């Protein structure tokens, strides 16, 4: 039986890890490969780097970070942010990433997912969707891009269907309303998506406690949970989160160190 995953997400800007609360007020959190190694030792099932470097000239730094991380971290590595073409995806995979998440670029180029899935296999193509609840319309979410700043008018559920049809092998689903709040995941959004797609769904945005993680899986039917600030700020360790999830009956992989 597949185990449920806990994924720390490292937002990387200009080579350093930062975490924004609702994407503003960024605070420096440290060196990406070092943090990744620490999390892997603590039992992280996968490491996610989200590159939020605005300037294209900063991109080389990301490949360097991926390479340095892949030489010392032996769990799967996902990279998102700023990948706009199959060529850029190839470079990130060659640097040692296992999966690449595309977000704004998939909106701009409707063929990007299909092209990348054909070329590299759907297992390494992740569609990252930032969804915001449409005010006054329960059960509807809109896709927003560019770090949550730009609305697209796309219905999030229809968009996800289309991306999965095109070959996305996984959905990284972020609730922009909850992101950075630590108030818990948007369970309604998760249920709406997990009931529609066959591919794994990663819950993101709002993790504040281990109970939130369990809820995303038992009620939201997510395959994995992703969080940043609660881990970076050591509010809850990965070991503690997984131990609590295991106690609640969620099948997880426990850290050897904690055993």
């Amino acid at each position, binding site marked *: 039986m597949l185990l449920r995953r806990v994924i720390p997400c490292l937002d990387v800007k200009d080579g350093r890890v930062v975490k924004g609360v609702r994407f503003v007020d960024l605070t420096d959190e440290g060196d990406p490969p070092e943090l990744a190694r620490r999390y892997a030792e603590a039992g992280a*099932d996968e490491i996610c780097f989200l590159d939020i470097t605005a300037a294209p000239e900063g991109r080389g730094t990301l490949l360097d970070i991926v*390479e340095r991380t892949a030489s010392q971290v*032996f769990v799967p590595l996902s990279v998102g942010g700023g990948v706009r073409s199959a060529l850029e995806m190839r470079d990130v995979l060659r640097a040692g990433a296992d999966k690449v998440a595309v977000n704004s670029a998939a909106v701009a180029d409707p063929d990007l997912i299909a092209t990348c899935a054909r070329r590299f296999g759907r297992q390494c193509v992740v569609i990252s969707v930032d969804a915001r609840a449409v005010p006054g319309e329960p059960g509807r979410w809109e896709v927003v891009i560019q770090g949550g700043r730009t609305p697209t008018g796309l219905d999030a559920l229809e968009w996800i269907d289309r991306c999965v049809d095109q070959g996305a092998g996984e959905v990284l689903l972020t609730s922009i309303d909850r992101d950075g709040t630590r108030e818990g995941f948007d369970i309604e959004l998760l249920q709406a998506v997990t009931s529609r797609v066959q591919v794994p769904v990663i819950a993101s945005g709002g993790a504040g406690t281990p109970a939130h993680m369990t809820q995303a899986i038992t009620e939201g039917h997510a395959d994995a949970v992703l969080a940043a600030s609660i881990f970076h700020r050591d509010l809850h360790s990965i070991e503690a989160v997984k131990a609590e999830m295991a106690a609640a009956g969620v099948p997880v*992989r426990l850290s050897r160190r904690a055993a």
Partner: protein
Amino acid sequence: MTEPVRVAVVDYGAGNLISIRNALRLLGAEVEVAETPAGLGGAEVILVPGVGASEAAMGRLRRQGLVEPIIEQVRGGTWFVGVCLGMQLLFERSHEDGAEMLGLLAGEVVPIPGAPSLPHIGWNRLEPVRPHPVLAGLPDDATAYFVHSFVPQPAEPEVVITETEHGGRFASLVAADRIVGFQFHPERSGEDGLLLLRNTLELVIAGRAADVEVPA
């Protein structure tokens, strides 16, 4: 001091070699990436990684002139380590596309029987079904990272060392003589995966004693 194990990682364009190379280097092996038969010379271990489809993979191995040299060297005592698709290629035939494969182990490759979802991607348990030194020190709740849709069905049950459940049960680790095959990615399976790779390298070192020719 023990000489480092010399590993040739076969590069036939079927996926990322960096992680497996990094893991082997971390464990003290001397790793060369081999694209041609000449690249296999001097290797104690031929490691075949790979993701993707078996027919395409065999086609690339054939075009690079690697199929016969790999078979000959392994029959001549070189170790073979297969990872994911590289493990499946050990067997005779794939139901994925009818590919004729290396045939170093008897059996066929089939879709995961009874799988609730395909591909099978993520962490799952390794359940030992018979003792083998490659498992030395592995904890009871060992886990590994999988990315695949097909699995081998070995004709000889004694080569199956661990099984994994995804709907049905399948052989997740096989071993025979100087062959070790991982259906999962040990280089992506954290401490348990690194332990399995370390054990494999130690088996190679232990096997050297058998190779030493005693002068008459």
